[in-house]
């Protein structure tokens, strides 16, 4: 991993520069170190406490059997919760649903996002307005958007989609219940495409035009110019968008809660929704915690890639 531009060259404070030859220099250097650390500490301690205490408790609870509604049911269970979640089909279904939803939503929103970004990278009439309209889906409250999609657009009788598709023989289709996963993927793609578009567009606009002009002079066509010049250039931006998007979409909860409630059956139950069901419908703290530990492990795998990309981009910025 490359070193990001974490710091400007530190300006040597008078204490450090003058104290090198003096006795007590070590002490004053230590004092300087603490003075530097002081402004960082409140935020660091705050984030550490509020994220690590719950996480430690999740790990701890995952080794216990505890029903929240039964006082006194708290007892050590060893690895039983883990054995249970690994042997139950519901866990496998939730993992599969999470992977399918995340991969599809990210892949489709990245592809559409790149295409729209390339379109918006041109000179267009009313480009500012087009851009403003495009980011609307990302800003609308996800719970509100999910309701609008489910009720006013995809309802089999009163929905607008039904009205539009009736003439071509696709009337009265209960979209949400017949294609639950496709519905969730559609809503998430609609929401995240603007996000991808914004990141890729920023990348495209920082592209050096001279390279493209030189390629044009050398007789390169549009496709090879995209393939060999533009694509390599925007790649880190696409990667950044895809990885940040994955980390958000893997946690999808709002749209599932508002449209399908994880159903029909388990068709749209992903890991966050399964955990919600186990914790707040089943009140099984131990098992919910074991799922939580599992989710952390899965997320950290994706996150390690995301962080590497993020640091690479910061490095690129520093060189420029």
């Amino acid at each position, binding site marked *: 991993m490359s070193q990001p531009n974490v710091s400007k060259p530190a300006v040597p404070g008078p204490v450090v520069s003058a104290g090198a030859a003096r006795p007590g220099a070590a002490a004053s250097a230590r004092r300087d*170190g603490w003075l530097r650390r002081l402004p960082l500490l409140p935020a660091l301690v705050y984030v550490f406490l509020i994220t690590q205490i719950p996480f430690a408790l999740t790990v701890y609870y995952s080794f216990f059997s505890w029903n929240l509604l039964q006082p006194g049911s708290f007892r050590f269970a060893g690895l039983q919760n883990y054995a249970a979640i690994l042997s139950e089909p519901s866990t496998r279904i939730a993992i599969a649903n999470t992977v399918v939803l995340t991969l599809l939503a990210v892949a489709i929103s990245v592809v559409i996002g790149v295409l729209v970004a390339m379109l918006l990278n041109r000179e267009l009439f009313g480009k500012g307005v*087009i851009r403003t309209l495009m*980011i609307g889906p990302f800003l609308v409250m996800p719970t509100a958007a999910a309701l609008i999609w489910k009720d006013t657009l995809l309802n089999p009788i009163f929905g607008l989609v039904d009205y539009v598709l009736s003439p071509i023989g696709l009337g009265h289709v209960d979209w949400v219940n017949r294609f639950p996963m496709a519905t969730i993927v559609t809503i998430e793609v609609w929401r995240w495409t603007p996000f991808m578009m914004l990141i890729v567009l920023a990348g495209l606009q920082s592209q050096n035009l001279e390279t493209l002009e030189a390629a044009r002079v050398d007789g390169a066509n549009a496709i090879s110019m995209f393939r060999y010049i533009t694509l390599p250039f925007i790649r880190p931006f696409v990667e950044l968008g895809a990885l940040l998007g994955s980390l958000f979409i893997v946690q999808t*909860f709002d749209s599932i809660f508002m449209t399908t409630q994880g159903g029909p059956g388990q068709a749209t139950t992903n890991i966050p929704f399964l*955990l919600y069901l186990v914790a707040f419908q089943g009140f099984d703290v131990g098992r919910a915690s074991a799922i939580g530990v599992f989710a952390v492990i899965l997320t950290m795998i994706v996150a390690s890639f*995301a962080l590497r990309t*993020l640091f690479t981009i910061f490095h690129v910025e520093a060189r420029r």
Partner: protein
Amino acid sequence: MSIATARRRGALLGGSKSFWSLLGWVVAILFFFPVLWMVLEALKSEPQAASIPPTILFAPTLDEFQSVLSRDFPPFFINSAIATIGSTLLVLVLGLPAAYALAIRPVKRARDALFFFISTRFLPFAASLVPLYILARDLHVLDNILALIVIYTTINLPLGVWLLRSFLLEIPNDLFEAARVDGAGFFDELIGVVLPLVMPGLAATSLICLIFTWNEFFYAVNLTSSIAATSPIFLVGFISGRGLFYAKLSAAATLASLPVLLAGWIAQKQLIRGLTMGAVK
């Protein structure tokens, strides 16, 4: 991007401007349509909102907005505002000094600190839900807006620290050296040098806090019930299909979405930088 550059780019990419503009408008309207439909439905009467075929031409009415506002929605809206303002202020107050210690006079191992901050943001919300629920219950802050403020601050602080740091790195070093020659301490520097120059950074951070806090649903729905419930929770009441209240539903959805929509549109420049924690400008 200047007009000349845009033109040069257009010439380079080829194709007619009219064609691509038309395509651009079609795509934008397609994506924006659900948002537009939400607002249109909200401006109709109930029978118009659920009519077959859909009502396109109608005399707009604010009745449904009034009915939503005059009944039970305002407390939810106010809770969202308190949670957002409270956690945003905390993020700025805790985040700016931290960013200072990671950019201006960097601590040792600043990179590790940055790494730690951002890794906490990527922990799945689900993993901390159960312990946070139990902690909140035992501390008697279930259904209390304070619990949400504490949690939302944690969610946004890592993003805020990264983002503010990226803005602080842009301040020329000379300014600090000059201030130090004048004998300025940490607070003098923070208020005299940093604060006037970091306003766009504070705006970007506030915008990101607003988006993630105002729209947050997962913790809100599980940690609140009636007293501290926020705007998205109000919409849960519309899930059951009992009766068709499309106009009312749309009015509520529009009102709930409005603050973030407006702020995001006004501060488009800060949006992209904020969402990528300063990595992309």
